[in-house]
């Protein structure tokens, strides 16, 4: 038993089992059959090529957001403002496309400009949170939330205001002209370009964090900011840079949401990916490669659960329950493992 609890892998397996048991209990409370629920989720995520391309498509924003958070997590920061940074990226990207719509500029150039502009938007929004923390003493959690709310307000005033389509105000802009869409895979919504960018993003983050001096220093800042400061690392500057890097990924996420998938700017375009990415990042424990499968599982659950309403008259928020309980049980088992190990060490020393 002790061995099971102190081994890293078996403790994660136990957490997984506990999360499944908990989920089954929650489903049974609703008088539903857990096996049928899981069948619906499987069918809606990997049951068909069509479903799977949708999962892959939603995986792109989630993994990109998670990649960005790797920087702030490494620096010991909680960038809860991810959601607003994605929104700003989307707003900036759409603004550029809107400006060029009807001009002679080739679509590909406009798309590249839009993505770059989205990156700038996300980075600015993240930098503001960092500045507020460094110079205003406002914890990044509250600063980030504040800027999420402000981004919401800006988004709403644009899509219900100057950017609303003629005549209607339904929280969405007019659809982009086809030439400003990232090319999509035949017969699906999946954009291989976006998928490629996401994969490059994962590689880039891994290289920066694991293979450069900068990554090492950032890690030192996150582990112990006071002693790194005393050793001559400009901690404040490193924190700000980690916010900017995170914002770059957030902005990219938002821009791809516009040109790659939604083809409009609309309210809630960030889709909760920023909030979900925080959970993926926690589970991945700052290992970018590990976050690849975790993000895929999380997105599969979300997409699969969206069919619960039609098939079983259950609320699709069940996916959030599964994801949340999974993280909670992993944290619990991790804590149990460390407490047992510490006790063992104490006994050995005594």
């Amino acid at each position, binding site marked *: 038993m002790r061995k099971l609890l102190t081994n890293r892998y078996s403790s994660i397996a136990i957490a997984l089992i506990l999360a499944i048991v908990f989920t089954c209990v929650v489903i049974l409370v*609703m008088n539903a059959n857990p096996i049928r629920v899981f069948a619906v989720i499987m069918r809606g995520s990997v049951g068909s090529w069509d479903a799977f391309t949708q999962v892959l498509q939603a995986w792109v924003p989630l993994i990109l957001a998670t990649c960005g958070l790797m920087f702030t997590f490494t620096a010991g920061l909680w960038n*809860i403002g991810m959601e607003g940074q994605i929104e700003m990226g989307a707003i900036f990207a759409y603004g550029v496309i809107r400006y060029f719509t009807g001009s002679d500029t080739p679509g590909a150039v406009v798309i590249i400009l839009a993505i770059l502009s989205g990156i700038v938007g996300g980075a600015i929004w993240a930098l503001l949170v960092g500045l507020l923390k460094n110079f*205003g*003493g406002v914890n990044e959690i*509250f600063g980030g939330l*504040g800027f999420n709310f*402000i981004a919401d307000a800006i988004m709403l005033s644009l899509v219900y205001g100057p950017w609303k389509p003629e005549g209607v105000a339904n929280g969405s802009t007019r659809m982009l002209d086809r030439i400003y869409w990232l090319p999509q895979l035949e017969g699906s919504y999946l954009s291989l370009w976006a998928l490629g960018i996401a994969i490059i993003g994962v590689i880039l983050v891994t290289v920066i964090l694991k293979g450069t001096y900068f990554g090492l220093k950032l890690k030192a800042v996150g582990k112990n900011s006071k002693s790194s400061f005393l050793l001559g690392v400009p901690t404040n500057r490193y924190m700000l840079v980690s916010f900017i890097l995170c914002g770059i990924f957030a902005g990219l996420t938002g821009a791809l949401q516009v040109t790659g998938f939604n083809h409009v700017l609309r309210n809630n375009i960030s889709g909760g990916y920023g909030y979900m990415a925080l959970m993926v990042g926690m589970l991945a424990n700052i290992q970018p490669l590990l976050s690849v499968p975790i993000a895929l599982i999380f997105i599969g659950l979300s997409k699969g659960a969206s069919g619960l309403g039609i098939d079983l008259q259950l609320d699709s928020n069940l996916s959030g329950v599964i994801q949340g309980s999974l993280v909670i049980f992993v*944290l619990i088992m991790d804590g149990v493992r460390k407490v047992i190990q510490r006790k063992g060490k104490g006994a050995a020393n005594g």
Partner: protein
Amino acid sequence: MDSSLVNSIASIFAWAGPVIFAVMGETITERAGVMNLSLNGSLILTAMVGFAVATVTGNFLVGFLAAALVGALVALLIAFMSISLKQSQVAVGYVLAMATKSLAYFLGAPYVGKQVMQIPVVSIPLLSQIPILGPILFKQTLMTYFSFLLILACYIYIYKTHQGLMLQGVGEKPTAAFIRGANVNRLRYVYTGIGGALVGVGGALYSLSIKGWNGQLSGIDGIGWIVLAITIFGSWHPIKGALGSYFFVILQWLGIVLQPLLPNVNSRIFQVAPFPLMILALLFVNIGNADWVDRTLAGLPESTRRVIAKLLRAMRTSPPAALGIPFENE
């Protein structure tokens, strides 16, 4: 003063009820050195539980009790994971905020839009006859009166009782409190549980007296984060925290009042506006803590410097010294 204005001012006190309960709960929890970051989710979950239980049993009291119990359980889970298992309070609180929110929407789906009876308004004899003040303060529901009493009770408990002194000690100087004979970790468990129960009452009060239960459309999402901000804004002091709560509710009320006057601005903007304003307020109370402010001030002429320094000191807040730091008695 015309009666519609009196009525709307009275409704500010009623709307503030849930915020007050949650802010007082979080103030007590953080005073003991634990941060319950799950508020946004636990408020929604307890709103759902309170509503569902009250609808099924037809009894408010049972609804509030069930919500308090659930709020306490969520809080105790945070205490267990952070105190006993030494996990980061921020991480645990954040995940629980997300998980409890989803759980509330999933389990609460069958109760969406159900009607629940109104909590009756109780006029206090004589006092409610006072012009203007009477209808504002003394024609409220029982729970609103409780929210007034709770502010006072928290203030007296924290500052005027021996247990309150211990509570402050556990959050400020746990080692000293331990030497004085306090069981630091047990007290942290207790106060986290009590705080969570108060948050639960606040959640139930939302659904049972103000918003009803409409799943994701209940309009409770986001308020938990604001409660956390108000707790800081109120520098962990019950009376200042209460003022912050009323300030936030007044901002929300202004949004509704101003909306018809500015027809060009989308109504949703008025709904979101109080949230960033509250965060801005945080900036003002925190800015005095930053080094660069001290450095800039040093360059100013003496008389100006003194005035600004005084102003900053009056606004500045500093958290309980051991907030979020695990205690180990070595």
